[in-house]
C-alpha cells in the first residue's frame, strides 16, 4: 500500500438493522499519519461504523476499505496491522494486566509479545502490570486497553472514547500521547469521541455524523471558520438587526441585551458598520466570534435535525 493512499475509506456505507437505518451512505476518508476525529451524538452511528471497519458487522450496502483491504474480503490480513478499542476495553479480570496483554499479543504476532514491557511503560502501567486486571480502576483499564491496541505495533489505531474514566490530568496526558503516536511514530489514529474540546485539541480532521449521515467533514480549523459571525455592542439592537437583515449576504442577526450577533463573515465587518452608519447607528464595540468545535457541532446537528424535521 502506498503512503498516499487513504488508510480508511468508505463508499456510501449503509447499515440497516431491520427498519432502522444506522448508517446512510457514509463517505469518509482517513489519511495516513493523521489523527482523525469521529464525532456524533449518541446513536449517530459511530460505533456501527467502527464495528464495520473491524469486520464485526457486515454493511448492508456500500463498502469500506481498511489499509487497502475491503471489509468484505481479506480484512483479517489488514486487521493484523490495526489496534482498536471498541466501546469499553474488555479483559479477563482474573489475569494480570501483563498476562492479558500476552493473550492479545499471542493472537496478533510472534513479535508482539516482546513489545509488552515497552508498551506498558508507554501507557504508564509499569509497576502495576502484575496486578489483576479486575482490580484496575476504570482509568487503568483504559490505559490497558490502549496498551492492548498498541502491542501489535499497529499502523492504524481505532479508539472509541479512549479518555473515558480518566481524570483531567490523565485525559490531558492521553491527548498528548495520542498526538505523539501520530507525530513521532507516524501512526494513524481514528478517534471517536463525544468530548468536542478533546477532538478540537487533538485531531487534524474531523467528520461529524448525525443520524447515520455525514453532515460535515474537513480540517478542524476549516470547520471552525464555518461559524462565521460578528458580535457588536450597540444601542437599539432591534433596529440594527432589522437594518443588517436587509443585506443579502448576512444570514441572520439576533439580539441579546445590548449585544447583537450577526451571521456574516468577520472580514466584511466594515460593510456592516457602513450599513449601520448610513442609518445613524454606531456600535461601541465590534469583535469577530471565535467559534469552538462544540458550537459548530451543535449548529450543524441542529440544522440537520431541523432539515430532517422539515422534510
Amino acid at each position, binding site marked *: 500500500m502506498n503512503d498516499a493512499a487513504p488508510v480508511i475509506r468508505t463508499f456510501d456505507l449503509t447499515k440497516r438493522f431491520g427498519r432502522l437505518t444506522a448508517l446512510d451512505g457514509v463517505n469518509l476518508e482517513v489519511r495516513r499519519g493523521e489523527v482523525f476525529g469521529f464525532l456524533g451524538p449518541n446513536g449517530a452511528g459511530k460505533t456501527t461504523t467502527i464495528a464495520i471497519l*473491524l*469486520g*464485526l458487522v457486515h454493511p448492508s450496502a456500500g463498502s469500506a476499505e481498511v489499509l487497502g483491504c475491503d471489509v468484505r474480503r481479506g*480484512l*483479517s*490480513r*489488514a*486487521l*493484523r496491522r*490495526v489496534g*482498536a478499542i*471498541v*466501546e*469499553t*476495553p*474488555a*479483559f*479477563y*479480570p*482474573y*489475569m494480570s494486566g501483563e*498476562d492479558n496483554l*500476552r*493473550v*492479545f499479543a*499471542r*493472537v*496478533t*504476532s*510472534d513479535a508482539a509479545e516482546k513489545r509488552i514491557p515497552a508498551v506498558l511503560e508507554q501507557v504508564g502501567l509499569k509497576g502495576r502490570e502484575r496486578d489483576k486486571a479486575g482490580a484496575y480502576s476504570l482509568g487503568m483499564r483504559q490505559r490497558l486497553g490502549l496498551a*492492548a491496541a498498541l502491542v*501489535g505495533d499497529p499502523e492504524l489505531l481505532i479508539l472509541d472514547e479512549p479518555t473515558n474514566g480518566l481524570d483531567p490530568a490523565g485525559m490531558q496526558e492521553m491527548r498528548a500521547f495520542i498526538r505523539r503516536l501520530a507525530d513521532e511514530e507516524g501512526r494513524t489514529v481514528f478517534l471517536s469521541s463525544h468530548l468536542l474540546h478533546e477532538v478540537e485539541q487533538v485531531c487534524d480532521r474531523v467528520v461529524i455524523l448525525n443520524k447515520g449521515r455525514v453532515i460535515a467533514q474537513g480540517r478542524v480549523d476549516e470547520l471552525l471558520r464555518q461559524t462565521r459571525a460578528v458580535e457588536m455592542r450597540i444601542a437599539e439592537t432591534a433596529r440594527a438587526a432589522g437594518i443588517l437583515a436587509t443585506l443579502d449576504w448576512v444570514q441572520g442577526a439576533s439580539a441579546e441585551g445590548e449585544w447583537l450577533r450577526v451571521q456574516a463573515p468577520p472580514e466584511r465587518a466594515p460593510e456592516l458598520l457602513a450599513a449601520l452608519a448610513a442609518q445613524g447607528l454606531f456600535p461601541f464595540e465590534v469583535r469577530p466570534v471565535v467559534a469552538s468545535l462544540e458550537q459548530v457541532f451543535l449548529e450543524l446537528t441542529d440544522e440537520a435535525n431541523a432539515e430532517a424535521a422539515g422534510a
Partner: protein
Amino acid sequence: MHRLVAAEWLRMGRHWLSWALLVLLIAILALQVNGKLNQLAQLEREVEAGLTRDDTPLTPAQIEGNRYEIALLQRDLRYPASIGTAARLGTGFGWFFVIVFAAVATGEDFSRRTLRALLARGVGRAQYVLARTLALWLASGVAVAAITLLAVLSGLYTHAQATDDPVSLAGLGEALLYPLRAWLACLPFVATVVLWVVLARQAGPALGVGLSVHFLEHVMSFMLPFFMISQTGVEMPWFFRVEGKILAVTPGYNANVFLYWGPPVSILPQLVDALRAAGATFTVPTEPWRAVAFLIGYGASPWHAPCWG
C-alpha cells in the same frame, strides 16, 4: 491458528476454575479408588468369617456372590489394569467437569465481550471456534495425563492392597488404551458445548443443557443391564425401547461404548455376566465403530457454528 491456541492455553492456565476442577477430580478419584479398596477388604473379611458386617451368617450363595465381586475388584485394582480403572472412574465426574469448564471458559468471551477484542484482531469466527475447541480438548488431555501419571505412581500400592499376586506388566497396552480413549472421548463433549455456547452467546443454556443431558445419560446407564433380552424372546416394555433409542444417540453413551470398546457395563456386572451366560444380548447398540461414528459427528459439530454467526 497455533498462536490463537497458545493464547487460549495461557488463559486457561490462569483460570482458577481449571485448577479447582483438576484438584477436585483427583480428590474424588482418590476417594473412589480408596472406596474400592475398602469394599474389597470388607468383602474379604466377610468371606473369611462367613458373616456379614452385622454378624448375620452368609448363605453359600452370598459367599459365592462376594467371591465373584472380589474377583472383579481385584481385576480392576491389580497393576497395570488399575491405570485403566482410574481412567474409567475419572470419566464419571471428569466429563461433567469438561462440560462445566468448556461452557464457562467459552461463555466468558461473550459475557466479558473479549470475543469482540479477539475478532477485531483479525481472528475469524471459525478460527476462534476451532482454536477454543482444540485448546479445551488439550486441557482435558492434561487432566487425563495427570490421572494416568498418578495411577502409574500409585499402582504398585493399589496392587499390593488388592492382591498377593506378583506384579506383571501383562495387559499394560490395553490398560493404557483407556486413558487414550477417555481423552479422545472428551472432544465430542468439548465440541458440542462450544457449539451451544456460540449459538446461545452465553454459557448458561449450554451449561444447563449439557449437564442435564449428561446427568440423564448417567441415570439411563443404570438401566443398561435391563437393556438386555434373553434369546428366548421376552417382550421389552415400550418405555425401555424408547429409552434405549434415546440413549443410543447421546454423546455420553457413545463415549462410554468407545471407552469400554463394547458394552459399557459398570453397574451390576454380576447380573450382566449372568444374563450373558444365559444367552441374553443388549437391545441397545454396543458396536464400538458405530459409537466412533457418532462421536466424530458430535466432534465435528462446531464447524457449523460460524454459519450462524
